């Protein structure tokens, strides 16, 4: 096979080595525009996982590379004048230049042709003259640009502005430094890679970067400014430059990594933000997978390339997802600068979703012990303290103290007692309607009269007997009322036995739903009274927590959203107008609800449409609710209109929203969004992304097996 590889970076060289090793008859040439010893940036990081793959692929280079490695198991976090250290990680790094020397010499030894200072004029000409052309030419890949359209290539900036320096000091850990300046937070990602030098990446969001004047500095000036900024941490050492210009990280994605006999490898095909340190690892793994695909399908170009994509694309997608989360974290980290060091550090370590409470407990049991103890004692931990994980820490709001942070919810009143007995701290009933006309469906329970309150009192007693506190989600369906039971569907109107709907404006909710009548001032006063009366009945029934429903497009939420509130009076228009009625209701409920019990709000913080309620408005509403006596925001999103283009459903889809509400509105949050495991809850709670987690525990075969009665008495088996 005649192979032309464009780009003599780690991926291109690694592939050349492996192809030649697999079959010395392959004619492999690597073409590089730069000199053999030209390289930008400093050290590159690896995780242990890659090294195994490298060892299996080519033991010779593996040995040389690992002999050169700087290795360390620790992550240092420098924040607010403190150093927090997490151990048990497995990092190794090597100078990029040294890595290339090793690979170049191995490639030469195997008979790979290496051509440096060689520019490719036309990739198509190269492709016509070879069996296989490999674009291993990095983030600015000429090969990718040549076939941008058929490959479905997307390139764009991601994350903060950054500059990649070296430093003449040897760190003994992967080090994150967070430095507060007048212009905003600036952070450093630094790690050692040989016996003299460390990589030292400085980054900050674009606004901070401009305010600090970096946008107008040349390389020398910005070096001096960064040295001055991190003088304490550098302790007399110097920063080093190697074309260390401020830039944006470029995110590269391609729908396909091959076109005809041309294939992309490493950064040319996909990039992963440097803050998870996986770019070189992914590139070298690509090379290994591609060479193996040709071992499986010798001479079958198309089959081998499809095989390579099938194997690598899912892996790369997962890393790009994690890298995207990590890059986004660093752009908003300033919002967490009020957090105590312990949750701040855990939030940082778990930012990409790859590290969780459970797997950190494996890597660094002491860190997790200290976190758990700190969390349990509300920041007052003692040396040597032990405590259960965050979900089992009690939570106090006023006179209400929940035994733990786990919330379970059920629409069916008869399930509440069981949920309390299953161990939850708080059991949430509802939705419960404040009036008969406020029901969603005929089977929606109500608190509209004293009789309904009496029935609820029994349910609340059951919850209390189970050791949990009881909460009720109290609301009015608005334009989503008078529908069939949710057991059949949602938002399918009743044909017979329905009732008239009310809303801020006469706009039907969805297909076949009737238009509601717009509320008038008198109706609104009456509704406020109905909410207050229902709140008094809820208190009388013994509920400990009242959650007022301002989510999912029901009556109060439909006032907040410009998509459903088109009123021209004082109850519509700008955000203050749209908030007016929901706040009046909150005020009425607050007066009716005992002061020593918790008043919460379920708040739809965004619609997920271009013209609907945006998250920044949702956060502003959360702030306003807190100022009006709301002690907990149960974060929801969407359903304000039925066809929301940005609707997003996956595990934990509400967590990023709860995190922003908590960090920016500074109000405690309750988050659900299909969280099914204790590990998800412990990670969210420990990292301060929410205060309470609503868990949905799926049915388990194992439980059925454990609980199943034996079919017949177990008899002793006689041994012959």
């Amino acid at each position: 096979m005649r192979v032309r590889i464009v780009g003599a970076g780690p991926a291109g060289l690694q592939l050349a080595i492996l192809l030649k090793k697999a079959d010395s008859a392959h004619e492999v040439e690597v073409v590089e525009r730069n000199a053999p010893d030209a390289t930008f940036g400093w050290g590159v990081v690896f995780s242990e996982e890659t090294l195994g793959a490298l060892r299996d692929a080519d033991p010779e280079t593996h040995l040389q590379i690992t002999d050169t490695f700087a290795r360390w198991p620790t992550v240092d976090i420098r924040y607010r004048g403190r150093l927090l250290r997490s151990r048990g990680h497995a990092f190794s790094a090597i100078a990029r230049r040294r890595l290339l020397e090793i690979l170049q010499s191995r490639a030469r030894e195997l008979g790979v042709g290496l051509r440096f200072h060689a520019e490719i004029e036309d990739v198509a000409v190269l492709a016509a003259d070879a069996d296989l052309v490999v674009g291993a030419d990095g983030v600015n890949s000429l090969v990718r640009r040549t076939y941008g359209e058929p490959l479905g290539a997307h390139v764009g900036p991601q994350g903060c502005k950054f500059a990649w320096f070296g430093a003449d000091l040897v760190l003994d850990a992967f080090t994150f430094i967070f430095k507060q300046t007048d212009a905003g937070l600036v952070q450093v990602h630094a790690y050692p890679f040989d016996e003299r030098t460390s990589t030292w990446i400085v980054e900050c969001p674009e606004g901070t970067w401009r305010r600090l004047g970096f946008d107008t500095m040349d390389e020398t000036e910005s070096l001096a400014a960064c040295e001055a900024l991190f003088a304490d941490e550098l302790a007399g050492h110097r920063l080093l430059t190697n074309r260390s210009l401020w830039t944006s990280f470029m995110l590269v994605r391609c729908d396909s990594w091959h076109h005809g006999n041309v294939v992309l490898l490493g950064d040319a095909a996909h990039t992963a933000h440097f803050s998870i340190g996986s770019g070189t690892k992914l590139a070298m793994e690509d090379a290994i997978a591609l060479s193996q695909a040709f071992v499986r399908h010798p001479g079958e170009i198309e089959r081998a390339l499809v095989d390579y994509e099938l194997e690598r694309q899912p892996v790369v997608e997962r890393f790009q997802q994690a890298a995207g989360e990590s890059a986004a974290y660093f752009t908003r980290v300033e919002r967490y600068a009020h957090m105590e060091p312990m949750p701040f550090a855990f939030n940082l370590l778990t930012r990409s979703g790859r590290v969780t409470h459970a797997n950190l407990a494996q890597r660094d049991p002491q860190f997790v012990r200290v976190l758990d103890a700190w969390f349990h004692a509300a920041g007052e931990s003692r040396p040597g303290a032990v405590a259960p994980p965050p979900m089992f820490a009690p939570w106090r709001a006023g006179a209400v103290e929940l035994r733990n942070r786990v919330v379970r919810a059920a629409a069916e009143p008869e399930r509440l007692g069981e949920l309390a007995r299953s161990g939850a701290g708080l059991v949430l009933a509802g939705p419960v309607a404040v009036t008969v006309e406020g029901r969603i469906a005929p089977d929606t329970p109500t608190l509209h009269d004293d009789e309904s309150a009496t029935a609820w009192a029994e349910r609340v007693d059951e919850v209390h007997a189970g050791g949990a506190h009881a909460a009720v989600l109290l609301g009015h369906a608005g334009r989503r009322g008078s529908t069939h039971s949710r057991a059949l569907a949602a938002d399918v109107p009743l044909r017979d036995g329905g009732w008239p709907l009310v809303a801020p404006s006469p706009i039907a909710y969805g297909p076949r739903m009737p238009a509601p009548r717009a509320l008038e001032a008198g109706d609104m006063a009456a509704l406020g009274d109905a909410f207050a009366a229902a709140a008094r009945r809820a208190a009388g029934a013994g509920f400990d927590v009242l959650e007022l429903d301002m989510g999912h497009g029901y009556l109060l939420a439909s006032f907040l959203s410009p998509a459903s509130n088109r009123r021209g009076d004082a109850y519509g228009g700008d955000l203050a107008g749209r908030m007016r009625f929901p706040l009046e209701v909150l005020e009425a409920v607050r007066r009716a609800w005992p002061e020593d019990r918790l008043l919460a709000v379920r708040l739809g913080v965004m619609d997920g449409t271009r013209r609907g309620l945006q998250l920044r408005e949702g956060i502003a509403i959360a702030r306003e609710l807190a100022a009006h006596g709301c002690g907990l925001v149960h974060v929801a999103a969407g359903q304000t209109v039925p066809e929301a283009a940005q609707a997003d459903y996956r595990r934990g889809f509400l967590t990023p929203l709860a995190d922003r509400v908590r960090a920016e509105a500074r109000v405690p949050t309750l988050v659900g969004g299909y969280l099914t495991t204790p590990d998800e809850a412990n990670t969210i709670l420990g990292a301060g992304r929410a205060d309470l987690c609503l868990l949905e525990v799926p049915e388990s075969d194992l439980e059925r097996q454990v609980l199943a009665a034996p079919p017949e008495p177990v008899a002793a088996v006689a041994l012959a």
Partner: protein
Amino acid sequence: MNVGIGLPNTIPGMDGRLLVEWARRADAGAFSTLAVLDRLAYDSVDPFCALAAAAAVTERVGLATMIAIGPLRNTALLVKQAASVDAVSGGRLTLGLAIGARLDDFETAGVAHGGRGARLSEQLATLRDGDRLGVRRDLRLLVGGSTGPAFARMARYADGYAHNGGPPRAFDRAAAGARAAWSDLGRPGRPLLWGQGYFALGDEDAGAAYLRDYYAFTGPFAERIAAGNLTSARAIKDFVRGYAEAGCDELILFPTVADPAQLDRLAEALA
């Protein structure tokens, strides 16, 4: 988990009478469901017509569209067709609907491509509204698609989710999206989860060629779909196990070669 089999109604050159024979054999075997695909601008048999023919010669097996492209069709006629297949089969229909992926189907039908999501929602609401067009209100509905709006539509109107194929881990991810939406919409319990895959036991080159052609509109993905064709008993067993572990309720295996021997070989591989 139940395992069903597809009818070869979208394999070009297939003799229409073969569908009838295929349905008879499936009904005599252990397959839970007979399912059809839907494509307009392609050499194929109409999904509702194929299921009506199958209904006539079967007694037991469930009948399903996996999926039919709802917004290609006039809503009232779609509801009438579904209700009719359900009636002639004695209530054995599961109606899977989605917005479709192929522009040429919409162009051929002379129907706008834009707004098809909202039109599908309208159709689902009409189906659930029931009665007027003779459709049962509790007709089992599935909705396919992998976007947030598709999951929301599924959770709002349907009984479950119809996945569009791929390895078990892709199904697992989509199933989490479906369950998340189900709970967010306040539906009790959990959604039914249906999955699908392609197989060819023997004649695998013909199977791969069909998949390349059928999915040519996806460009580079056609090759990958062809590479995912299940061509051995072991691959089928692994696939079935993977789907069962991911919580699939009903897995439909679609043939890529229109030969009744394929059905027998699949039954044998699953035995």
